């Protein structure tokens, strides 16, 4: 008995079934297009997603030669940078041996007014971190804030320049008139200056540090019209209620204090 070429091992071959199925789908598309597209739209979405993902995946391997070159170039650059880094580290180490560290100690503020006594800050760094008595505390932008007045192992206290009995030499105005700035308490500063100096409200007050550092702004000028001097009411540039960290470093304040207490006139 001869076997039909279209019918192989079974009565109906897979090819015939496939052809029948394809013809059925073609008829479905022609006779009921809406139903047909309703069935196949999700399949097309899956197909689109698959195509997108596979393109993204295979694109990664597309330019293997370029990637290899880029990889080699980056490795060379990396090696060069590592060498440069080593050389710079050696230079830094040699410079650090010659020059003492002037960057200071960064300390977070544990308590500030009103949590701490007025015109003091409690820092989260103490003698363990290298803080010593007489070091000066600077806020953001290098604004001088005060002097370390007490040190524990892990904490220290800074007395602000605005504390009563605190004095610091400084300058005021565009002509840099020298003044002695004294603490007035509650975050305020005062200074006395000759009326003829021509200081006006809004003038900046500077304190010594590395150069001249702005410490406050003249907000009001008080004085008896008969007096030759006036009192400058100074508002600090930084709000002590909102300071989050300070830099503490030695500026020689202790040395200056020792000089002023032992010798009335500096040599």
């Amino acid at each position, binding site marked *: 008995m001869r076997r039909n070429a279209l019918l192989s091992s079974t009565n109906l*071959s897979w090819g015939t079934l496939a052809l029948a199925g394809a013809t059925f789908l*073609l008829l479905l598309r022609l006779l009921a297009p809406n139903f047909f597209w309703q069935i196949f739209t999700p399949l097309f979405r899956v197909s689109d997603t698959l195509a997108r993902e596979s393109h993204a995946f295979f694109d990664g391997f597309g330019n293997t030669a370029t990637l290899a070159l880029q990889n080699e170039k980056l490795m060379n650059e990396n090696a060069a940078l590592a060498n440069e880094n080593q050389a710079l580290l050696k230079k830094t180490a040699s410079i650090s041996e010659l020059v003492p560290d002037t960057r200071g100690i960064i300390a977070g503020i544990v308590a500030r007014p009103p949590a701490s006594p007025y015109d003091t800050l409690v820092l989260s760094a103490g003698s363990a971190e290298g803080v010593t008595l007489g070091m000066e505390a600077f806020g953001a932008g290098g604004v001088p804030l005060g002097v370390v007045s007490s040190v524990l192992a892990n904490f220290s206290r800074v007395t602000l320049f605005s504390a009563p009995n605190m004095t610091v030499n400084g300058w005021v105005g565009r002509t840099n008139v020298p003044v002695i700035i004294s603490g007035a308490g509650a975050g305020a500063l005062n200074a006395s200056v000759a009326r003829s100096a021509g200081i006006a409200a809004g003038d900046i007050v500077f304190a010594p540090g590395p150069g001249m550092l702005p410490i406050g702004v003249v907000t009001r000028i008080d004085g008896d019209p008969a007096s030759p001097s006036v009192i400058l009411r100074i508002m600090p540039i930084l709000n002590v209620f909102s300071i989050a960290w300070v830099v503490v470093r030695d500026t020689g304040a202790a040395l200056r204090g020792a000089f002023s207490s032992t010798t009335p006139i500096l040599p």
Partner: protein
Amino acid sequence: MMRGILTSLTFISTVLFPWPLTVLLALATSLFEPLVPLAAGLFADTLYYAPQSGALPFFTLYGALATAVALFVRSRLKTSIIRG
């Protein structure tokens, strides 16, 4: 079983995979099932043919061609002395 898997793969490939893979599968399946290229071509045109374009349904035509070639080759093999 193999024929069924290949035929199904060809149809799935028509929807999901790139057309070169579909062509490859259809040609491979045609070794066992000569009607599959025609069926796959018809299926592809059912899915992707746009009558408004005015173009010919090439998938069906190429499928028919592949089927004709496959049938011809099979008929030659059947009548050859090698098969006995």
